[in-house]
């Protein structure tokens, strides 16, 4: 066991009545790491995040954060956690700056320090000019950035991002990713993010787990997972309904999904050989990505 694990989960379970939302998962997250929890809606991502944040009592198993046990030292844990929830929950009764100042009180930050930090954070998220603006007047991206700034007001060592870019425009997503990158390089903060976007996990995370029905379906580095699960390249054929999958040898994996056929292999030449039999159907030969792994894992 490594000594620098900042979050350790052992056989973590969560029941809501008879429904099992998380069914015994174990994982460790190292200090300074960016760790992603991937999964479809309802796979147990948010529940896991809420258990880490001491917001949802654990039903079974053991979870420690920063050396403290969830369920026993919740106050100590929450004081080192920055939480960015799935839904923006900024305070509409307060303006932008007040949102940060009022929040800082819950962490008992003295007013002067809170004001200084708030100004720096507004600068960091480029919202200084909106300090007196009403929260409702902000765009979706601005609100998201403000929620992230609010989560940083007490200089946490761990940042929990629950689906940080769900529902945002592509350019706003880029902006949020940029901020998360800045944070990682500037503050050496541990980032735990949940997402159902493969590109997000691939871009941001060092290691990840894939959750399916409350269980861990795969774990590893994105590149490693792609290599071990699906092979380097993918041939994707569209509008292939009614066409049987090509006979391939064991070095190639064939998958059919609706009218889509996908072949995974280690080199492009092998895959290219399959192309003629599909005639003029639209196809693309590309590097495999995390989405392929994810869909493969979910399908199995």
């Amino acid at each position: 066991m490594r000594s620098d694990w900042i979050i350790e989960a052992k056989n973590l379970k969560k029941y809501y009545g008879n429904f099992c939302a998380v069914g015994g998962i174990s994982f460790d997250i190292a200090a300074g790491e960016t760790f992603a929890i991937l999964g479809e809606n309802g796979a147990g991502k948010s529940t896991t995040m809420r258990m880490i944040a001491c917001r949802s009592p654990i039903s079974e198993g053991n979870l420690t954060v920063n050396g403290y046990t969830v369920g026993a030292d919740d106050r100590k844990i929450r004081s080192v956690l920055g939480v960015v929830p799935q839904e923006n929950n900024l305070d509409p009764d307060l303006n932008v700056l007040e949102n940060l100042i009022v929040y800082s009180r819950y962490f008992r930050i003295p007013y002067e320090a809170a004001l200084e930090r708030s100004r720096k954070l507004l600068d960091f998220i480029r919202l200084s000019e909106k300090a007196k603006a009403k929260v409702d007047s902000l765009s979706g991206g601005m609100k998201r950035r403000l929620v992230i700034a609010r989560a940083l007001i007490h200089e946490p060592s761990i940042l929990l991002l629950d689906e940080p870019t769900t529902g945002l425009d592509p350019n706003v997503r880029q902006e949020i990713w940029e901020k998360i990158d800045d944070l990682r390089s500037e503050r050496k903060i541990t980032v735990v993010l949940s997402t159902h976007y493969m590109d997000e996990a691939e871009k941001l995370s060092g290691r990840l787990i894939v959750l399916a029905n409350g269980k861990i379906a795969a774990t590893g580095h994105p590149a490693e997972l792609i290599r071990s699960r699906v092979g380097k390249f993918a041939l994707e054929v569209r509008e292939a309904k009614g066409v049987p999958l090509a006979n391939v040898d064991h070095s190639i994996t064939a998958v059919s999904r609706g009218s889509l056929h996908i072949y995974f292999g280690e080199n492009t030449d092998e895959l290219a050989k399959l192309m003629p039999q599909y005639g003029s159907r639209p196809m693309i030969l590309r590097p495999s990505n995390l989405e392929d792994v994810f869909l493969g894992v979910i399908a199995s």
Partner: protein
Amino acid sequence: MIALSKVDVVDSLSVWRRNSRVYLRLWKTEMIAPVIEPVFTFFAFGFGVGALVTSQIQGMSYLAFVGAGVLAFTVLMRVIFEVTYGAYFRMVYQSTYDAILATPVNAESLAFGEILWAVTKGVIDSIFILPLIVIFGAASSAFTPLAIIPLVLGCIFLAGLGLALTAHVFEIDHFNIFFAIFFSTIFLCGAWFPVELLPRWLQIIAYAIPTTSVIDLTRAFLTGNFAGRHWIEFFYVVAAALICLEWALKSVRKRMVV
């Protein structure tokens, strides 16, 4: 385990300060209401109904009798609205509770802060209304300022009861039932006429409702007519306040921490 023991007062005060900040931003509208309402209640009950009532009630004029009713009714209403619609908006529509519970503040301290704030609003209103009561000639006793004591207890009782119910409400329209009960009972509670005029069985119900004791105690301080029963009423309200406070704290945890 007693939920009250989990309250961290400093945390509760942070929640209280959040609400007071919002209140101060809207202070003009917030402060006009507690003045307008009792003035017109006095017009209606003191002068309107009062003109019809020529007999003395418990040895006083109807206007003197109804002062405690006007005061308690206005203050308790303020509290009820704060912990029902006010709290429900913060809990459900604005997710303010969710945001707060991601910090070191626990559910009990959050609930206690909300109740503390509702009671504060009740106290602010009392401070506005008490001089009005004196101006209208409905308070004659030197003990008048002490009427704040039963009012605070009544505020804690109804703030606790209201917040506990809010924590059980999943549909905002369900408040209608609660308000129907609240408004019906307040008519029984000796605000506008003495409980003794009711049939025996209704009197029993009326005295079972702690609001009756709150109003009777308030009246005692405004008029200076104290009796032995006031001690019983005092302890009854204290007990009701503590029970409802504890229930509110437990209910908010049950609702928010799942």
